[in-house]
């Protein structure tokens, strides 16, 4: 279709050039934007990786600190367990006045005691004790040096009663009386022998009581 444009040629050329310049400007801006996108994306990823690495280092430091705390707490735990064992052992100890009273009550008339002792007389050495339930903590800086030396006190397992009786039946009567107290799980007459002393003839007995 026929068309004319009365706008002077110079103006049209200028407008065309201006339009092209704008088009190129827009195109370059768009291309620049498109080119910037992957760069910015890469940069953002790098920043993200850097942040994550920093976070990882922080976590590792925290982990190390937590491990140290755990080791220290393990030592404390061991110490507390030892104290707990000792407390339990002490709680298991009998009241010797009560034991002696029962033995005296159970002793027949005219009999007398020569000795009263426990077996073992002292706690067993550490090597004989069973291993603790928790594993021994690794050597840490806060571990006390005498922690391993603290052993709980052991209660006596047996009671040995030795004495003299004027009659042979009296040791057996003593055993029966001790059994009747229900304080011991087992009462055994180990020995009952006749001895002649300056005061007369007596029976020396040796009774073993087990809790």
């Amino acid at each position, binding site marked *: *279709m*026929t*068309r*004319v*444009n*009365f*706008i002077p040629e110079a103006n049209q050329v200028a407008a065309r050039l201006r339009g092209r310049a704008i088009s*190129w400007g827009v*195109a370059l801006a768009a291309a620049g934007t498109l080119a910037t996108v992957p760069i910015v994306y890469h940069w953002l990823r790098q920043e993200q990786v850097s942040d994550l690495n920093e976070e990882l280092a922080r976590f590792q430091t925290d982990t190390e600190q937590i491990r140290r705390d755990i080791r220290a707490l393990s030592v404390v735990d061991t110490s507390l367990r030892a104290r707990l064992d000792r407390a339990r052992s002490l709680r298991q100890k009998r009241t010797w006045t009560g034991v002696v009273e029962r033995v005296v009550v159970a002793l027949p008339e005219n009999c007398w005691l020569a000795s009263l002792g426990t077996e073992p007389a002292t706690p067993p050495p550490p090597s004989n004790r069973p291993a603790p339930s928790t594993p021994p903590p690794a050597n840490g800086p806060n571990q006390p040096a005498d922690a391993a030396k603290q052993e709980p006190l052991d209660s006596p397992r047996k009671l040995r009663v030795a004495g003299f009786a004027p009659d042979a039946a009296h040791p057996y009567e003593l055993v029966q009386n001790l059994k009747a107290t229900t304080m011991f799980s087992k009462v055994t007459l180990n020995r009952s022998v006749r001895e002649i002393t300056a005061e007369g003839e007596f029976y020396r007995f040796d009774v073993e009581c087990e809790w």
Partner: protein
Amino acid sequence: MRFRVPQRFRRSAIGLDYGATTFRAAQLQRRGPLWIASRLVQSEHSPSESTPTNEEGAKEDSFFERLQLAGFHGRKVALALNMPDVEYVSLELPEVMLAQDPTQTKNAIRFEMERLISNHKGAVEIRHWRLPATNVPAPNALGAAASSSSITKMLDTTRRLGLTCTAVDSAALAQSRFAHVLRPPQPGRVRGVLDLGHVQSRLIVCIDNIPVLVRAVGAGGLILTQRISQSLKLSEKASEVLKREHGITVLGQRQRVAPEGSVLPLEMLNPVAHASTPVLSRVESSPTTQLGSTLFAAVRTDLSELASEIKRSYEYVLSCYPDRQAGDLLLVGGGAGLPHLYEFLGNALGIPVLRAEDCLQHSECRLRCVTTKNDPLDGYATVIGLALEE
């Protein structure tokens, strides 16, 4: 390298026409072979109001906002220059001259045009286009001259209004493009486009969609209103209302309008000589038609002169192109809505006279738009033609 928006999203430049009484704007959208008039706006203003062609300019703030509010996209506008701001001269140039270097041809045409034009003093912008070849001595180019100062003023004003003027076209070419899209030209026919403006009526005669003759053919709507006002002793406003509502009626006259598509010989332009032309209807007398008849009596002389000038123009073009036949006449412009005018012209000329509205329903019409009775398509011919970007 050019970057183009996909066609379906692209909108045309805004066609702007700041006429004597009406401001019109149009923007089109391409859908395959069709053109969709996505935006059509018109608003009337008083003739004294400043126009974009004036250096003082319209209200700068409101103008662009008005376009934006009306839903127009972009800032690119195309403007038109109409007669008498642009002067057309038929040129009969030696073929040797037209075949030489375009710059030399332009210079030669400029020399010839400056010699022939009468209206413009000072610097002028001159454009021309080739006319279809003929086997008789006839003009082979049509030149158009427009004053440089008025073009510069238009450009400055549009710039001040925040718009970018991409083209200042001839209104005649815009209207011929509008006619082409509305209804493709029939082969071997001479088509006319009659622009009934406010002050002046202009005829564009086209061959194969190329304007071969552009000329003022008579009075515009304002003169007709004044004639009615003088004849009926009414105010101009009342006369305008009467004119628009009742139009003209030729009582007792058979309407002799050739059916569309029929071949019309040159002699048929004479309304007296051919009583054998098909009679489509007979106008009956009634109060309404009598008022129309009264109005017609008031403007009879002007309309007869108009018909006579159109006939003369057709005859001239047909004499230049003897192998062609007279085709249809399309009425555009604000005055095209005058009721029964197309019947009168059809009767007087004996050729199909069409209104743009009628062509919209045609299968070959490549324009789609929605218009109303109060906002007919006729007035948008120039702005739609400006917005067409084929």
